[in-house]
């Protein structure tokens, strides 16, 4: 897989990352190298090996459906770049 600048722009958009135009070529080069290395996997005969998503093959533990966390809205919102009256502020979405 050889990445072009346009491929980087597409991945950057899907990843919601702003990339400066002058950096596109270098990212294209780096991503091509990385995916070329990863491309070696495609030559491997994996037989009937099942995909391994988790090292211990555990099933997700369930817990009782009870409230465990208190209301810490103020503490959490004190970390927000912009919050007011208990709300997170973002640019206007609906005109």
């Amino acid at each position, binding site marked *: 897989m050889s990445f072009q600048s346009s491929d*980087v722009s597409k*991945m*950057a*958009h*899907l*990843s*919601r*990352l*702003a*990339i*400066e135009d002058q950096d596109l070529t270098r*990212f294209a080069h*780096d*991503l091509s*190298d*990385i*995916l070329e*290395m*990863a*491309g*070696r*996997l*495609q030559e*491997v005969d*994996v037989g009937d*090996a*099942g*995909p*391994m*998503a*988790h*090292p*211990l093959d*555990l099933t*997700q*533990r369930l*817990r009782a459906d009870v409230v465990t966390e208190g209301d*810490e809205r103020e*503490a*959490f919102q*004190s*970390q*927000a*770049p*912009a919050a007011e009256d208990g709300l*997170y502020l*973002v*640019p*206007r*979405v609906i005109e």
Partner: protein
Amino acid sequence: MHTKSLKELSALIRRREVSSREVVEHFLDRVRSLDPSLNGFVTVAEERALARAQQADERLGAGQGPALTGMPIAHKDIFCTRGLRTTCGSRMLADFTPPFDATAVQKLDTAGAVALGKTNMDEFAMGSSNETSYFGAVRNPWDLERVPGGSSGGSAAAVAAGLVPAATGTDTGGSIRQPAALTGVTGIKPTYGRVSRYGMIAFASSLDQGGCFARSAEDAAVVLQAMAGFDPKDSTSVDQAVPDYAAGLERELKGLRMGLPREYFAEGLEPGVKAVVQQAIEVLGEQGVEVVEVSLPHTELAVPAYYVVAPAEASSNLARYDGVRYGYRCADPLDLEDLYKRSRGEGFGREVKRRIMVGTYVLSHGYYDAYYLQAQKVRRLISDDFRRVFEQVDVIAGPVTQAPAFRLGEKIDDPVAMYLNDIYTIPANLAGLPGMSVPAGFVDGLPVGLQLIGNYFGEGRLLNVAHRFQQATDWHRRRPAEDAMRAEAS
């Protein structure tokens, strides 16, 4: 005082020959005088540490206090600390102060440890040299022109330079073992699920595992003992009793079967490193360990599989940084999309962006089966290799890295060359197995580590082998000269 082990320091303060406050002041003083040359700390929490030391002295005065009471430690800046800035080495979190403690932090607090501060690291733990940190590279105390390894480079350098007797770290593809090897300290990455991931900022959730650095296996045993254990707040934490690690340290090694994977000694391993590792294995052989050659045939596929699985998980985990709830926000966003894109574009460094884009790519429609699903199948093959070998042996041994510490700047512009650093450490992460790095000697004045890989939940066995090795050798007692550090710092 900084040449003493945790065990010795603890004995001194319990006998009241010295107070915790004096111990903590001594180490803080070393941080102030030596760390400017290393850049191992992102945040030093002096007042907080002195207040905690005071409390420790009061507890000890009342004849109380668990194992680590009054002992200075440092936390990798990936562990959330309530009320203390936690940056994860990123501009994205440069001003983030968590409203809660990571479970590992809380457990070490409960055990009485006094955190001196937060250590530098590769941004979001993505790196093998500690050069991707927003707060600047960390330097190796053995040679200030060289890297300490990564991503837990700050913790490793701080322990190696005697700025703190022990420190926490995390290991997703080698981030404890590789820097431990490159700085000549003892590092352990436990079995996946042994130490809670709650409050440990996520990079690749099926691989991330917390552990620690110390000056010896004996000290690492005490720290790991305090960190390990089931945590209902981490859905992948394993509910299994934690054995008494200290109690098993002295166990005889006679009859222990140790496998040397031939793939770990193949082309690429520097002859000097190979000789050091072979000598270390001979030392263990003299203690009655039976050494056999084994094969992990899919070893060379570990790096490619990892660089699909880890970025895929990272791209998902790092989607949470949106410039809205916490973390960096760009100035004057035009609209919501601009807010997301520029906050992330400006908040993340180059390596993090590369991995997010690779992850997004391998998970995208049309490429998912060819890359992500295939990588997960290869991961199974790698894990099965270990399963077969552990039917024949108790422990696996080999090198941690192909070469000693490389120069700052040497690999930072070539991501694939940087990734290949972790060729011997990544397989244990993919399988979820515990691993250690133990100081084993030097090549041209630079430390070399012996890697030990154990079976699932075999941390006690690894610490036992490492401890017996350290009783027969003194590599772990060697310390870097301080002249260069002092000259650079002044």
